[in-house]
């Protein structure tokens, strides 16, 4: 099926990017879940809506590739209200 060394895909707590769609819209200034991206790790091309969100506690959100589970995007909301975006896990995001 998929390479899932952390056994995350069966976790009932797993969400997807729809759960953070409002935050993504706020950060990028436009609707993002229907935008295309490519995972920098495995090359999987998919819409951002397919990315998995495993942990929404704390100030950060991690979105992982649905195929290889590596991190594609990390978002952190800082105390001053600004956002930190680490998109090194994305070869590209088209929007």
């Amino acid at each position, binding site marked *: *099926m998929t390479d899932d060394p952390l056994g995350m*895909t*069966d*976790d*009932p*707590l*797993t*969400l*997807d*990017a*729809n*759960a953070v*769609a*409002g935050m993504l*819209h*706020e950060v990028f*200034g*436009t*609707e*993002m*879940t*229907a*935008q295309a991206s490519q995972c920098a790790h495995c090359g999987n091309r*998919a*819409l*951002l*809506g*397919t990315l998995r969100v495993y942990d929404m506690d704390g100030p950060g959100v991690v979105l992982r590739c*649905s195929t290889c589970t590596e991190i594609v995007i990390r978002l952190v909301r800082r105390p001053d209200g600004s956002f930190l975006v680490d998109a090194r896990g994305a070869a590209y995001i088209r929007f």
Partner: protein
Amino acid sequence: MNHVLGWQVATLKAIKEETPNVKTFSLTLENWIQHRPGQHYDIRLTAPDGYQAQRSYSIASEPERSGEIDLTVERLEEGEVSSYLHDVLVPGDQIEVRGPIGGYFVWDGSSAGPLLLVAGGSGIVPLMAIVRYRARVGSRAPCTLLYSSRTSADIIYGAELNELAARDDGLRVIHTLTREQPPGWTGYTRRIDATMLGEVLGATGNQATVFVCGPTPLVEAAATGLVGLGLAPSQVRTERFGPSGG
């Protein structure tokens, strides 16, 4: 959707009890923007001490109702926001909302191909917006809704779904009741699995565009089952609600 996403105050117009644990909240919005079927709103509550809780709730109503949205919310035992909405909020009260949000888990009839909607529990809500929209615009796209509930008393929008399915416009509604069934029940009695999906897809074949929404385990099982039946992953759109409500 390129609108600027900001918080606004919504006023509660009416509450409708759908099932013992599920209510629909009709909200009027001053800065209403027409939504697309499948989208959601975020609700934010702020306590007197400044503590904030925020949750997302799918829009149940079709886009044609100007100025208003219906959010159908299941009351979760441990739910900070859902218990407030169910237990405290009364018509006339105001809450902060943000939306409409989303774009991936959306169907707005642009494809005329067959549609398969797979719902588990409160996952029916965004799919009901699609069903209502489809009926409202007179779409002839064949549409099958496979809807999993614990008991018949837990079926949300049951009467309306019966009425829509009876219109003979290409909508099929198939229920599975997983915990308890009424006397004489001849339908499915188990959780959604690949065999069930194969039977339901049947005539549609694997040309369908599929939307799956509900508790994460149901969504995972359905999506895996559908891909196993030969659908491409890009044909299957999913929205996970996390652990089931109980």
